[in-house]
């Protein structure tokens, strides 16, 4: 599990006596804020992928299959929220631009359908990709975490693409 490698480099949180692993709800937002924005921030922002989940997996209870799945799912949901937020933002801007150009009688290809098509094909790619990845572990207990890791990474990468597009609007 490649995320476990990361976890070794990260300090674990306070060890509390509890059954489930501890996920830092602000971990991703803090990492992205520290990474900064702009053209050169890409690698630092991408380096946030999997970090909060790795930290969670290093907490008590995070090293079981169920704990790993829970940690990966937590971070995947954080990225999914970012993805949806940025998608709405970029789509809204595209629709506004299209309406403006249509008003001018422009023959330029509309931007909103192109964005929607990119998002639609991404969903198909994510599903096909993670199905392939989980099939590789078929029958093993690593299948659950592998699928969760795949969804997390692909969702995060798409969230960062849309995030960069949204940044370009400002």
């Amino acid at each position: 599990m490649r995320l476990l490698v990361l976890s070794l480099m990260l300090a674990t949180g306070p060890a509390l006596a509890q059954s489930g692993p501890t996920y830092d709800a602000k971990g991703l937002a803090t990492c992205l804020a520290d990474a900064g924005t702009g053209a050169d921030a890409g690698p630092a922002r991408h380096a946030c992928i999997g970090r909060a989940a790795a930290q969670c997996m290093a907490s008590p209870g995070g090293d079981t299959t169920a704990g790993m799945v829970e940690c990966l799912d937590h971070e995947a949901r954080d990225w999914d929220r970012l993805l949806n937020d940025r998608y709405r933002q970029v789509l809204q801007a595209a629709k506004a631009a299209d309406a403006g150009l249509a008003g001018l009688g422009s023959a330029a290809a509309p931007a909103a359908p192109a964005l929607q098509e990119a998002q639609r094909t991404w969903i198909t790619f994510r599903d096909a990709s993670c199905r392939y990845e989980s099939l590789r572990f078929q029958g093993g207990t690593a299948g659950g975490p592998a699928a969760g890791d795949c969804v997390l990474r692909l969702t995060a990468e798409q969230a960062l693409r849309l995030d960069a597009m949204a940044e370009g609007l400002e």
Partner: protein
Amino acid sequence: MRPLAGLALAALLAGPGLVHPGLAGDASGFDPAAIDRCLARAETQGARADCAGTGMQSCLDYARRQYTGEDAGFPMANCLDASHQAWEAKLTSLYRAMLDRSDPQEPLRRMERSWIAFRQALCDRAGERGDETARALCLRDETARQAALLMSLAAPQ
């Protein structure tokens, strides 16, 4: 701009076919070995994807010295294309090696086909309004990202 870009992989997806020879190492001044050196140092999938732009600076320096034409955008377009072709060749060989080891092959083929459709849609969007540099950059970066993904699947850490 470059309908050839996705052809090598598309041909491979359709079954046994020809591999596009690529432009790497030609008169563009792009050195594809720089990518291999970067990949050899990279330890994570993210770090491998960050190798995407490796070799661009020396290619641009070379192109700006050698090119005497009028088109100010030529060095960038030419180097981006050479860089994209180098990654395309890398992705194609990774994909083919994985396919040879896969049984059944269909899940991997489906993944790669869906990725091609996604890259097309994403980069068409980037290139809307005729921004060919954005389109070429998108094709290069996404191809590098997919190569990084296949590399981590071929050798999980």
